[in-house]
């Protein structure tokens, strides 16, 4: 793009201000090799990436973009989740009504839709990302441990989705969580209906009862009620995002430290 130096341009003037140059240190337009490198190095967000990559690594047919999309959808879910928290109160009196209001009273109320479909989409993109990593053999040395971190991320993603499932407090929610959490009651040794639970006792005193087993710990009660809603809300909004972010930091760091994206040797 050629710029006529005699033509008056507000943008060109603006680009020479102290303010503009303090924000975009690299300068615009980006024309030189050096500038292209400096953009990557100067930006806190972009410097997650290396400056240079082998050509196969930028091809969609190799990466499927699924890892990046998982992260992007995670960000979308964080933003929409924060917006939803403005309206939502995690008590059995208010929860359902608040969700109803979200779609009926809030202008342009599609945040819940984006959040819910985004959650489904993130589970799918995470699975497909793992599928790609497997098909390219990218878990092989030296990236073994990053695959293990990835499995942790998969589990946390599904737990996030699972805890979020309860929050609308409708029939679908409590019964899906009832089905899911009943499994915890069957945990060997630690669940009331699990094998070996009666072994954890002294004389007649049984330690694993309906108010002290794994299911109770998950729900904070003997059934899916007020305490379970609060627990799932806290886990969904604070606990699990905190954990998944730590795993993500390690995951991204290790991608770079283990030699960048996989490629043929």
């Amino acid at each position: 793009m050629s710029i006529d130096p005699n033509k008056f341009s507000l943008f060109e003037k603006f680009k020479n201000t102290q303010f503009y140059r303090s924000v975009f240190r690299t300068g615009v337009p980006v024309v030189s090799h050096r500038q292209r490198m400096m953009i990557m190095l100067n930006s806190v967000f972009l410097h997650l990436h290396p400056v240079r990559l082998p050509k196969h690594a930028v091809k969609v047919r190799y990466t499927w973009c699924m890892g990046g999309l998982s992260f992007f959808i995670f960000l979308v879910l964080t933003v929409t989740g924060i917006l939803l928290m403005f309206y939502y109160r995690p008590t059995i009196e208010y929860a359902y009504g608040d969700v109803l209001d979200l779609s009926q009273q809030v202008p342009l109320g599609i945040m819940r839709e984006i959040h819910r479909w985004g959650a489904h989409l993130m589970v799918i993109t995470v699975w497909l990302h793992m599928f790609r990593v497997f098909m390219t053999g990218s878990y092989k040395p030296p990236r073994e441990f990053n695959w293990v971190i990835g499995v942790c991320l998969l589990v946390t993603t599904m737990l996030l989705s699972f805890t979020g499932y309860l929050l609308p407090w409708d029939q679908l929610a409590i019964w899906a969580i009832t089905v899911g959490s009943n499994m915890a009651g069957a945990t060997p040794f630690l669940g009331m209906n699990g094998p070996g639970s009666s072994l954890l006792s002294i004389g007649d005193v049984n330690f694993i009862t309906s108010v002290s087993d794994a299911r109770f710990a998950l729900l904070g009660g003997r059934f899916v009620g007020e305490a379970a809603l609060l627990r799932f809300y806290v886990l969904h909004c604070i606990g699990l995002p905190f954990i998944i972010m730590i795993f993500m930091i390690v995951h991204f760091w290790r991608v770079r430290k283990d030699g960048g994206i996989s490629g043929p040797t």
Partner: protein
Amino acid sequence: MMDAIKHFINFIAAPKILFNVILLSYLIIFPPIKPFQIIHNTLGVDRLWTKKGGIFIFSLMFLAFGFGLTDPNFRLIVLKPDNVPIVALLFLVVFFLWFALTQAKANDEAIAKGGKPKEWAESREKVLVFPDLVYIEFIALIVAAALLAVWAIALQAPLEQPANPTVSPNPSKAPWYFLGLQEMLVYFDPWIAGVVFPTVIILGMMCIPYLDKNRKGLGYYTYQDRKMAINIFMFFWLVLWVFLISIGTFLRGPNWNFFGPFEYWDHDKLEVLNNVNLSEYVYMIGLKQGLPSNIWLREAPGFAVLIVYFGLLPAILAKTAFKDVYQRLGVVRYSIFVVLLLMALALPIKMYLRWLFNIKYIVAIPEYFFNI
């Protein structure tokens, strides 16, 4: 005519039949043993992993899906807002399977001719991340955001009646990504299907990089260089995970009974369940006597089966079918590998035992909630 086709599809969609169809297709497409490799070669399954093959697969899928949509019962279940992602998942999984294997086939052919995979030539050339990658990411991000926005406007997030602990919907289904586990509940007790299996699945996935000692096939799509790993992976991913989720989502109705894709979800459908435990088979049918009152004696046959399956079988396999694997992996890795594999195979084995002999439990000690 239409009804006859629908009737036929309903019939073959029953788990007993569909699982066999899926298992057989898996064995032919990803042949783990020689006889199936021969069928694989004669049928020329590899031709699927080309552009023409892709067109064939997708025409078939869209045709089947389009035909299904003409039926009200099929529409009801497939177009339910919460089931839309699973329909999308099915198409995406098939697409990416084709996409990966098509590239693998091209690379394998190049390698067979003494060449290098396509990725190899490309990886010699370096590109700058800005703008080459940043722009691709930017476009992917816009597309994903647009997709989500359209999806959110088109389909309202479902909200059912307010929660009521006294009225349980029938069927009560877990979130869709757990439906594979819920489907296992038909064959195993909750402590296995809901606790032991998920734990083993997670640990088993973490073990993959340490069990696969094949150093070939890193950083490029290939099938021939890591046949065994891919065959095993596909069994878990396609047969035991995606397929079971689809069954649980689309084909399980009230009382977790099976319903064909074109069948009305009748709440009064009755299915006769007369399942028998192994101990009852041995003592009451085999030895024509009552069950012993001693639990250990009663369940001795079941424990014997378990000891043979998990104790003896790995050793026998190490000497026979898995001789090379054993030598490659060493004792520790081999033991972990074989136990994981046998646990996974326990599911189809239990399915067949149920369908053929109505076996309920191998070991049944309901006194201690210990049923296998």
